[in-house]
């Protein structure tokens, strides 16, 4: 039986090469003086200093986090009731509804985002509709609203599916027990259903927040050229400016910020579950 453990060896080597080494390289480049050859390494903190001493860069980071938080909150508020609805449906209906939600996810994200350009642009369907109800001439494309919409559109399914999974795993007898013990539907929801769905909610938040912070094509396609988020800043450093070391430093900063946030979220989860068991 033990000999099966050797099956993992090739993968451990592969993972070290393809998953660990790239991260190590980002770190190395971020501490390296400008220049793209790793052989002439000389240590510097300049790139980090550059980022943290400039309020424009910090503002971009802040705005990226903010729009990701907004996206996550909207996804949660929209996604929870829908997931709840799906989870309470009959099994057949449930499968169909889930299929309905998954099919768009199979279509390329860029393609779906691209479709919104036509819908939102001046003279497009949505503008015409707004005209009809007398709200004409509001600019839609290339605004923060458009970026937010694009993010919610792309990431909402993750939230719904995660919550739905945890809700449908729930033992229904718990609800009956709660009702038998005299709790009303509202009380049952907040005291029983919601706490039990928290793992799903946390997974959903992770799956929405993470891509929302780092997305760079949604802001570029729907926010226009002057809409800069941290992902665009990184892309810019690598693709047009050519300052890889600074770009690596920003990547490191972003990775660390995200790691800290995720750890905080997990902590909330653990505390929550710990509390329940007592």
């Amino acid at each position, binding site marked *: *039986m033990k000999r*099966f*453990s*050797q*099956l*993992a*060896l*090739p*993968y*451990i080597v*592969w*993972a*070290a090469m*393809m*998953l660990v080494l*790239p*991260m190590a390289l*980002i770190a190395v480049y971020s501490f390296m003086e400008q220049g793209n050859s790793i052989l002439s390494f000389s240590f510097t903190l300049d790139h980090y200093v550059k980022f943290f001493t400039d309020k*424009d860069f910090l503002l*971009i980071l802040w705005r990226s986090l903010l729009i990701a938080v907004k996206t996550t909150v909207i996804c949660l508020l929209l996604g929870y*009731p*829908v997931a*709840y*609805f799906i989870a*309470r449906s009959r099994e057949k209906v449930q*499968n169909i509804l889930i299929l309905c939600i998954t*099919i*768009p996810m*199979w*279509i*390329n994200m860029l*393609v*779906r985002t*691209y*479709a919104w*350009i*036509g*819908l939102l642009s001046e*003279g*497009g369907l949505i503008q015409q509709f707004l005209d009809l109800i007398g709200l004409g001439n509001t600019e839609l494309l290339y605004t923060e609203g458009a970026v937010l919409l694009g993010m919610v559109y792309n990431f909402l*399914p993750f939230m719904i599916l995660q919550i739905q999974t945890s809700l449908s795993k729930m033992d229904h007898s718990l609800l009956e027990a709660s009702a038998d013990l005299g709790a009303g539907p509202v009380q049952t929801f907040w005291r029983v259903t919601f706490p039990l769905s928290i793992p799903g909610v946390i997974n959903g938040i*992770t799956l929405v927040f993470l891509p929302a*912070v*780092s997305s760079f*094509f949604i802001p570029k*396609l729907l926010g*226009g*050229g*002057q809409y*800069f988020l941290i*992902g665009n800043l990184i892309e810019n450093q*690598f693709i*047009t400016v*050519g300052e890889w070391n600074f770009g*690596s430093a920003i*990547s490191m900063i*972003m*990775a660390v910020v*995200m790691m800290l946030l*995720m750890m905080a979220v997990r902590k909330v989860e653990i505390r929550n579950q710990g509390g329940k068991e007592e």
Partner: protein
Amino acid sequence: MKKRKRFTGKILMALLIAFFYLPILYMIIFSFNDGKSLTTFEGFSLRWYKHMLESQDIMDALYTTFSVALLATTVSTVVGTIAAIGLSKSRKIVRDVMTQVNNLPMMNPEIVTAIGFMLLFMTFKVDKGYVTMLLAHIAFCIPYVMLSVMPKIRSLDPNLADAAMDLGATPWRALTKVIVPQITPGIISGALIAFTMSVDDFIISYFVTGGGVKNLSIIVYTMSKRVNPSINAVSTLVVVIITIVLVIINVAPMLAAKRKKKDVIGKRRTFIPITAGICVLALIVCMFNLRGGGQDRPFEGQTLYIYNWGEYTGENIIADFEEETGASVVMDNFDSNEQMYIKVAIQEVYDLLVPSDYMIQRLIEEDLLQKLDRSKLDCMDKLSDAVKGLPYDPGNEYSVPYFWGTVGIVYDKTKVDIEDLERDGYNIFLNEKYKGDIYLYDSERDSFMMALKAQGYSMNTENEQEIQEAYEWLVQCVETMDTEIVTDEIIDNMAQGRKALGLIYSGDATYVMAENENMGFFMPESGTNLWSDAMVIPKNAQNPDLAHAFINYASDYAGAYDNSSYVGYTSANEEVMNDLAGEGGDFEGINAYIPRTGNPNDEVFVYNEDTKKIISELWSRVKIAASNAG
């Protein structure tokens, strides 16, 4: 009470599904649009499907997308399953460490993972292309496969394999006959996730690809600036393929179960639809990959790697060139000189580049170009004198002009008072009358050209004070005028008349004016950038002979005509330029098409490393200021 709740739930659900499907439906409808617009439907037509089928780029991208996805899914499913089985029998510490390692691509922002891969391939000098894309896809798919296989293994009885071996099975048989069948559902869902991730991936592919290899996402990302309804046609096709596959996967087991209700439900049942789905995909992939053979032509079987601006060639020139020479052309696109420079500087291999003037000077100075072989060129006499012998390459030793033109202001004659333009010149961009009605162009050198010229300075100034003033002019513009900084979107948006004013290349203005007669093109007296883009051959080119042949072909009447009439930029071929601007030509009466000559304030860009760095830095500050102001 309860009923009402269900009802609200249903409405919410219906709205949400409408929200999810609206863009997809919209896209499908507009893929049949006869016109080019994304907003008005002008009648039913299949022209974009035809265009799609004829476009080598799109067909190649479809092939790349699906072949990478199939290969990555197969490899990562097999490797991931084996690794998961192995790990489940490993010591706990190994298992825990590997879980953390696998979390790296899943818990990191995707762009960070992408940059990691990019740096990895650069550091080990692996040529970026199909193989690197495939490797990266395999690497980020395996953790997802393992994630869905692991729980199934954990729920297995740990003694199962031992039991099988006690009964005389070899370890291999125990593995394939006992363990694998038990965890099949996990393997299948892992494979499905891997496939979705791979087909859908953009960010990682974008950073690890090279050599003209593009998947569908990259095509959409690079084409999206100029409206190209073929994207809608491709997307519709993809939607149809994927829906068919999904329906097969989901419906077939139900049907099979219904028909053979009394059969023992074998695990194999689910394999049939999956195999069917994969076969359908494989068939499609093969269809796309069918290429015709050729006969006896000078460059039969050779490949020319071109690195050019996006949307910078005519509709037929590439296919005609391939037909005539027997070579195949791989074209990679950039949208700024800087982007091109980075790839050339890190020694990615191309045979032909089409950079702008100042960038050619820089490439020459840094010894990245090779001298052209005049004995192989027969095109120099056909080109306009005005684009030959320019300061960046005085004897045309390295470059043959492709397109040329100026930079000016495109304006809506119905919204802009021509007197304002004549009086203010570039300073009209600070005129509050046009607040919120302005496009700036996302190009550092041309934005600074405008700002410097607005104040009467030379656009090649090295005086830091003057550059600083230009910077402040631009910041004032983005902060007070509510501008939008765009790239090629300006072309369609101005053609649709969405804003009153914009800074634009003369060639783009030509296209805009040909589409919309209300548009005009104005060049301020204070001067403009007299630019040209030219074909050059990098030092590390692998097929300079073929590159020379292409230079001749693109400079000759037929090729140059196709390029110029399609793109709208002024041809370097004098006869083509005169024919297109002359009576009955495509651009008759459009002042933007013929570049201005004779204004003493007009200049050609000169490359200066120090100023370029300052301007580059300041321009990203302007953009950040614009972003933070909005």
